[in-house]
């Protein structure tokens, strides 16, 4: 079984995104499991700064050579920052998914929504369930 990096300081969604709280904002990216499943990422489409996303709705698209997936907003709120470097360097998602491969930052509009996120053990279980 492949080995997937799941950092201790992050929370996760059912759709294999990670989130990191920075003040009132949530930084969002996809997990190591997700990037390994997708393979070589060739394109990431992200929303412009200032757009408003709703929890569970697609906010962008990620493409590998042979697959395409939606990116789902982990919480509702306004997009306050976008990793524009991914436009020219989508490989950052493969090489450093928890660092340079971050995607957007969302201003949290409701603390309640954070309740639905997974912690590390829950996410590890979620990954294991699908990788046997």
């Amino acid at each position, binding site marked *: 079984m492949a080995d997937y990096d799941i950092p201790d300081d992050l929370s996760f969604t059912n759709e294999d995104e990670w989130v990191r709280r920075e003040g009132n904002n949530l930084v969002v990216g996809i997990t190591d499991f997700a990037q390994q499943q997708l393979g070589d990422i*060739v*394109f990431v*489409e992200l929303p412009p700064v200032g757009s408003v996303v709703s929890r569970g709705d697609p906010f962008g698209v990620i*493409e*590998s*050579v*042979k697959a*395409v997936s939606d990116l789902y907003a982990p919480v509702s709120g306004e997009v306050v920052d976008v990793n524009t470097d991914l436009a020219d360097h989508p490989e950052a998602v493969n090489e450093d998914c928890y660092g340079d491969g971050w995607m957007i930052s969302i201003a949290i509009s409701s603390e309640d929504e954070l309740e639905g996120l997974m912690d590390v053990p829950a996410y590890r279980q979620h990954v294991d369930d699908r990788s046997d």
Partner: protein
Amino acid sequence: MLEAIGVGSVDALFANVAQKHRLQRPLAVPAAASEQELLTELSTLAEQNAHSASHDWFLGAGCYAHFIPSAVDAIASRAEFYTAYTPYQPEISQGTLQAIFEWQTMMCGLTGLEVSNASMYDGASAAAEAALMAMRITRRTKVVLANGVHPHYRAVIHTYLGGLETQIVEAPRAADGRTAPLAGLVDAETACVVLQQPNFLGAIEDVAAAAAAAHAHGAKLVVVVSEALSLALLRSPGSLGADIVCGEAQSFGVPMGLGGPHLGFMAARMAFVRNLPGRLVGQTVDTEGRRGFVLTLSTREQHIRRERATSNICTNQGLCLLMATVYLALLGRVGLRRLAERNLAKAEYAKARIRATASLTLPLPAPTFNEFVVGVRGNAAAALARALEAGIVGGLDLAPYAPELGPALLVCTTELTTRDAIDRLVAALAGEQR
């Protein structure tokens, strides 16, 4: 073989098809014909059709009689090309892939744009796909469609957009044959303006003005070209501000063939590449670092994105694309331009003869390339019948398409048209005995 499979008869292989669903009789299609019989039968049918060598030919209207060099069919008849399929396995499809890459390059040059796809079904569906593409890019739903776009293309655009929430507004034609100024038609809801160059009636449109009108409201300009040879003479639509250029490239070495298979094309600005429908070939390297070509950016397409694909298109017109690529390579940078100038010269000669003929008119003053409208006295159908008696297919009766012009014909001349044929056409249309 049956033993290896473990069944007693070929019929047993169909055991999963319930007896009541089996066809209990032979198909009621004609009995098999030998190759010899087939050739006789189909030759007989073919002989019942007029063609560009059986008559002097002045009929264009989106399908053009041009000379096709012998080398085109020599290459298109190579089974290594025509019995291959879509180049899914690049290691054994480099021939097809490189030819497509060359086509893409030449179409970028001709249209003045940065990316061309690997072809579409025909000019009409390419125009419809271009409108859909502009709607995706702008996330708007209104299409301003010039009356001067080929009426069949307009019909196909209506068919394609019919199932979606769209509004199609027609931009009228001015008295000179061109599209009237677009101001007032384009607004903040408009996804695109669709303009044909030269338009269906032959008039050369003001592409730059249309681009300005579209862009002023954030809409895209789609330029449709049904006579691709005009691209060799006219300033490229891309350089005049078109965002998407599409149409029909049958003129580049593809036989008229009763209207198909022809060769739809589509080119666009690089910024829109991810919204482009159809296949794309890109350059890359193999594991040894050698240049090679692959189908690329395929996540736009139906086999991956399924219901969210840019289009449902699957096949392209690969073999027609090959013919056009060979044709463009043969004609080349100098020859294609000279050919376009020849087409213009024939049309200008014909127009001069018509101008000098009292009973004929040129009702639309806008400049034209190789096709133009001729006004006749009385009845256009009768004029065409007189031409036919003289062995001439004299053009298209415009009554169903532009009745407001009165009795009028759409007439096309190409490099195949002789001076003598033009003289005889003019005489026949004028009703003169000669």
